[in-house]
């Protein structure tokens, strides 16, 4: 596609529910990132994939967070047993292989946990 596509755009979950957020990257972009953005804050790094390999998951807040990119294209961020503090916008970004690595962001998935 022309840009990074994320779905759903909005998700309301009851505390304790599991959620799955999807990211469709720009075709050919090797690198894929997930960021978490709380209200009024800058994006915080969660995890990074190069093709299908998850090279860094140091930003995932807890073991309730899990990300995958099995075929090196579409990625899914899964949050188990959601908590209120998980409420945020989850941004997916992709980039071409290269030295600078300009990030192309999707519009994000806004998660609200009640």
């Amino acid at each position, binding site marked *: 596609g022309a840009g*990074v596509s994320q779905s759903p755009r909005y998700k309301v979950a009851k505390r304790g529910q599991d959620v799955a957020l999807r990211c469709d990257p720009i075709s050919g972009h090797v*690198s894929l*990132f997930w*960021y978490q953005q709380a209200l*009024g*804050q*800058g*994006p*915080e*790094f969660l995890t*990074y994939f*190069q093709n299908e390999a998850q*090279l*860094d998951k140091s930003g995932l807040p807890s073991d309730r967070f899990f990300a995958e990119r099995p075929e090196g294209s579409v990625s899914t961020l899964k949050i188990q047993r959601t908590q209120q503090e998980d409420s945020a916008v989850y*941004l997916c*970004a992709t980039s071409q292989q290269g*030295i*600078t*690595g*300009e*990030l*192309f*962001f*999707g*519009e*994000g998935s806004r998660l609200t946990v009640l």
Partner: protein
Amino acid sequence: GESVGLHLPTLSVQEGDNSIINCAYSNSASDYFIWYKQESGKGPQFIIDIRSNMDKRQGQRVTVLLNKTVKHLSLQIAATQPGDSAVYFCAEKNTGGFKTIFGAGTRLFVKA
């Protein structure tokens, strides 16, 4: 630890004036700096970048200045327009790595 911060959380300017948004960074190992613009309900959008071997870089209506001595970065927007109203983030990266670290952001208001 690594951090990228901003001096002002909000900035209000008159349409047509120039805007200056400032940013401080603390990681001396960072050698690549980027400004992103985020409009309401959208993801951040790349504006301009600069490598640490440069002091200044100009784009269309935007200029980024880098002062490595005091670890300071600024974004200048010429003839600010209502469409420039957004939150602006500075970000840093080590070109040997992959992680881009964002600051907290400055909200720019443009008054007509």
